[in-house]
């Protein structure tokens, strides 16, 4: 099928062809367009809305995408190689930088992987702190996502920036809670193999309750935004529809999968830690478009706020680490073996696959990040879409490049 000037009776036909064609991420552009009339646009790695340093090579017919090829690795820092050179205790602050907007989830996933190998279970108080932190982090992460999604649609010099500033105000207050708990705002280094490093300080509970009461009221504003804003609806409804079967086959998880009608949440279906006792209501939507993903994330924020309040009620007394407080790095030595543990991070299934060889360092440590799988949807969603819609679709998948590239 050619799109050259000579073969193209009307541009509309090409547009319809492109839309009707089954998205093929390995489309042969040479034979599709032998005359080279397609516009090749490098979106990124320095582009305002590629969420960091993603580069997507777009083949455009007018403004309609024919093929999209993501190029990853601009943020590859060799975290997995670093893990092989560090002891089990030293790894925690390194993985903080993977999914840099949800560092707590990273720490939880990696330490749960190590605990699977060691066969230890953190004490109840540590489990409570972990679950609290994970749910607070989920709200913070989704707030950031709403803001950046606004930027994708409204630009940094428009209404999107206003939305961004407002969600960041709320996110800041959650980060303040984390600062009181752990001493830092983004990269906490607070979890350890076998428990936590920092205990809940006095008065923290009141601070968290107040913060989340405010946020809970302000989520109503975002809700009204998604319900009534005509431009928002025009830009998101029916845009970037993700097919559930394709999403499963691509290993997509988290809100993107749930927005496509698959009722699946690791917290409920493969419970870990405190979630074995906790009942989590899983939000789903059936449309699979950007609006559905927005609504699922809003509902998840509500549910997380409910869980935070519930967890604050019953924090038991007791130790926060089963092992003796690890003073010197390098004291944890799991038996040789292979383990996998996964948690539901704000973006989906965040897993750790660890191979131990009996030493104090992992032999191989792979971090299975949900962002990589969500991003792999882009070559399937972009063909047939307008350039503007590609930006919105990419934003709605919420890829964090630190986790994609690692």
């Amino acid at each position: 099928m050619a799109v050259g000037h000579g073969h193209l009776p009307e541009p509309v036909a090409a547009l319809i062809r492109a839309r009707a064609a089954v998205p093929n991420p390995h489309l042969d552009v040479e034979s599709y367009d032998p005359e080279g009339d397609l516009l090749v646009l490098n979106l990124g790695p320095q582009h305002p809305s590629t969420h960091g340093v993603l580069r997507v090579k777009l083949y455009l017919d007018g403004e309609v995408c024919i093929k999209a090829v993501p190029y990853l690795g601009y943020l590859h820092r060799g975290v997995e190689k670093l893990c092989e050179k560090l002891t089990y205790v030293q790894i925690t602050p390194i993985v903080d930088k993977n999914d840099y907007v949800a560092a707590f989830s990273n720490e939880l996933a990696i330490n749960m992987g190590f605990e699977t190998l060691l066969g230890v279970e953190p004490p109840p108080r540590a489990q409570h702190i972990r679950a609290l932190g994970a749910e607070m982090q989920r709200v913070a992460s989704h707030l950031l996502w709403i803001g950046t999604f606004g930027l994708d649609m409204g630009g940094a010099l428009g209404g999107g920036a206003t939305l961004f500033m407002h969600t960041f105000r709320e996110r800041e207050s959650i980060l303040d809670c984390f600062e009181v708990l752990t001493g830092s705002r983004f990269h906490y280094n607070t979890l350890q193999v076998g428990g936590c490093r920092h205990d809940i300080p006095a008065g923290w509970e009141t601070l968290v309750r107040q913060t989340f009461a405010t946020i809970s009221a302000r989520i109503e504003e975002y809700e009204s935004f998604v319900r009534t804003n005509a431009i928002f609806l025009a830009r998101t409804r029916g845009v970037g529809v993700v097919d559930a079967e394709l999403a499963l086959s691509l290993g997509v998880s988290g809100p993107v999968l749930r927005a496509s009608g698959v009722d699946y949440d690791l917290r409920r279906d493969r419970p870990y830690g405190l979630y074995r006792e906790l009942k989590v209501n899983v939000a789903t939507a059936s449309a699979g478009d950007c609006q559905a993903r927005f609504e699922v994330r809003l509902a998840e924020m509500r549910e997380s706020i409910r869980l935070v309040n519930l967890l604050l009620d019953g924090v038991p007394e007791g130790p926060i680490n089963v092992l003796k407080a690890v003073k010197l790095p390098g004291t944890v030595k799991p038996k040789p073996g292979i383990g996998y543990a996964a948690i539901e991070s704000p973006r989906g299934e965040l897993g750790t696959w660890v191979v131990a060889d009996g030493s104090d360092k992992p032999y191989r440590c792979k971090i299975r990040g949900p962002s990589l799988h969500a991003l792999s949807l882009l070559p399937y969603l972009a063909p047939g879409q307008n350039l503007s819609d590609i930006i919105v679709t990419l934003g709605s998948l919420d890829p964090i490049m630190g986790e994609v590239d690692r």
Partner: protein
Amino acid sequence: MILGNPWVHGGVVGFVVVNFLMVTFAWSVWFERKFAGRMQNRPGPTEVGPFGLLQPIADLLKLLQKQDIVPDGADRALFNLAPPIGAILILASAAALPFGPGLVAADLDVGVLFALSITSLMVIPVWMAGWASNNKYALLGAMRAAAQAVSFEVPLLLSAMVPIVLAGSFSIADIVAAQSGYAWFALWPPGPGLVAFVLFFLTSLAEANRIPFDIPEAESELVAGVTTEYTGMKFGLFYLAEYVHTLVASLLATVLFLGGWEGPFVDGPHWMIAKALGLYAFIFWVRWTLLRYRADQFMALCWKVLVPTSLATLVAAALWKHLS
């Protein structure tokens, strides 16, 4: 005519008007940043001068000091010509704008048409810049701008025809005179006038590339549209053209629909400026509140909604004129 010789008069009034526009532009940027800051829980500029009031001067100095970069492969002549042409065109459009009785650089019989046609010429420097930049984002932005200008000319002119029909003249002075006694066209006749005012205002936003119709710039998609490759004062001139365009559109809406310089106590340019700045501030409010339409949705809005509505409004206005 205040001064006897039309050349002297035009020169003096034109000088004052152009400087008014430039100064208003400079401090409207300060106002916009303050305003947007307050909308976003932040103070806006505070460092330069009291309340950050000297910020425009700092911005200007910064722009002047920037390295002037012409990208490799750019068409140098077109690339360098586009920003001054844009600024000159948009300032020229103010020549036919009266600020008070006789306070006009050139009192043309066809003042409305002159102002609208000169502002619509803005697409030429934008296209020049997009083509000459040798940048795909700039080219896409320029193509969008051209498509947008071609489409939105139609409802813009049709809605501007409503006050022309009601006043029976193309001269801005006559149109303002026809609205005297608070019979502003936005209020009277009820219906067509108000609809035409809203349409004119919306299409002016689109012509001036303001959110929600700023798809030629769309910096989340096209980085900065046509201005992607521009640095320093060349970028500043495009920036100036965009803001002055918005200001001229507000002034035009004021004379066509809001009774021009008429107001309580003393009629005069101050009322004209106050009304126009009110509209101008409203545009800032819209800009920092709304998201952006997609290009095709926005063309559909133009051809499927705005054009039929403006035609119907024009017919209604003509009927009103015919019957009364």
